[in-house]
């Protein structure tokens, strides 16, 4: 097969397959992200919720990485769809911009490191920054975010958020837990990929 000469240009059929995969995995990422982040509605678990998101979404994300041929545009679209959904759901334009930037970095990781374990692992860790950034407005525009939350949540939850916004350490912890979830989730995903998806030829 190595003697076969190609034009180097990828077929438009693979582009359609990539775009369909982006749609499927974006839907799955949003659903799983939403379910796993609902733990954050319990005040004690606000900071830890990013860990559960990264942990649960690691397996589908690894599968997504293994199924795309054009990493940079696909990852930018994937993250852009997530950012767009968050924008529609009331998050600011900052979240959308962060999503696109994260998509670019994730795609670059896959492109330049490769789609092996190292590339997917580092891309998954970078991707965890996107879901962790959902809480960022609590520190960048505290009053507006608290006002936004006040219409949705009870007084005790808002008071807890206000307490968190006093210091920047919870923000560091949110990102650290997100990364920790991606690190552990990546290891689990590697095992699962070998045990299930590679055996049945899906990855």
């Amino acid at each position, binding site marked *: 097969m190595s003697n076969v000469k190609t034009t180097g240009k990828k077929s438009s059929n693979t582009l359609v397959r990539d775009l369909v995969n982006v749609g499927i995995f974006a839907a799955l990422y949003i659903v799983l992200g939403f379910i796993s982040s609902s733990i954050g509605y*319990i005040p004690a678990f606000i900071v830890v919720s990013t860990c559960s998101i990264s942990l649960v979404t690691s397996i589908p994300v690894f599968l997504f990485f293994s199924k795309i041929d054009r990493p940079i545009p696909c990852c930018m679209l994937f993250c852009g769809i997530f950012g767009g959904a968050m924008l529609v759901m009331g998050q600011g334009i900052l979240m959308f911009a962060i999503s696109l930037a994260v998509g670019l970095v994730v795609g670059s990781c896959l492109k330049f490191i490769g789609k092996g374990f190292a590339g997917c692992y580092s891309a998954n860790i970078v991707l965890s920054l996107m879901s962790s950034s959902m809480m960022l407005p609590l520190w960048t525009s505290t009053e507006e975010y608290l006002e936004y939350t006040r219409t949705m949540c009870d007084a005790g939850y808002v008071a807890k958020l206000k307490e968190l916004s006093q210091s920047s350490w919870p923000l560091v912890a949110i990102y650290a837990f997100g990364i920790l979830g991606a690190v552990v989730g990546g290891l689990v995903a590697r095992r699962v990929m070998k045990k299930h998806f590679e055996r049945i030829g899906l990855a």
Partner: protein
Amino acid sequence: MITLDPRTKLFLAIVANSVIISAPLVYSALMFAVPAILLLFEKKWKFVLAFFSLYLAAALGFEHLKTMDVGRVGTLAVSTMMLISHMMPIGIVLYYVMQTTKANEFMAGMSKMHIPNKVTIPLTVMIRFFPTVFDESHAISNAMKMRGIRLFSLQTLKNPFTILEYRLIPLLVSLTKIGDELSVAASTRGLVPETKRTCVVPIGFHVQDAVVFVYCIAVLTCFFITSKSKQSIIDIVSNLFS
């Protein structure tokens, strides 16, 4: 039956999402009314009635309890009420959009808005895939229940990773296979991002679209005025007439 243009439905979904999430209950109810009426025209009155009863109970409960400090257990209950009262209206809007919009109509609508196919195709797949994700997950859940694997069973509490293995992986396998079949079907039908598609369904704005547009813009305007002036809509209206 009232048929809306896909662009109107998209506008309705965006306005409903942006208003419902952060607005007081009255706006959420105003936006809830549009898909509810449209679903009644689709003869889904049982669904609307069940949805409305649950929404009303959760919304009134949340409005009553949200200013109180209810303790840890109470916070969980209030959070659940909050989730139901804020997410159900969004759910009904999305349900209406997904139930009544066919993939080709959505693509034709997006094409008329000059959105590139590279963005339209994933969005179309994603919109059509939300119900599939829930259906597949439900089917897998039923299958696992027969084997005694439940979310809060002794086995899953001992080893939470079994939930990933028994619920998430079959879901992923199933969705990946559906996705592969979908991309093969799309390629067979000649779906290529570079070419412009044709559509046999006539897409265009009618009176009902104008009514929904005007209603949504009116609700949006009221929401922005009240959020800027920090007054309720009833106070503003009474000030205007006094």
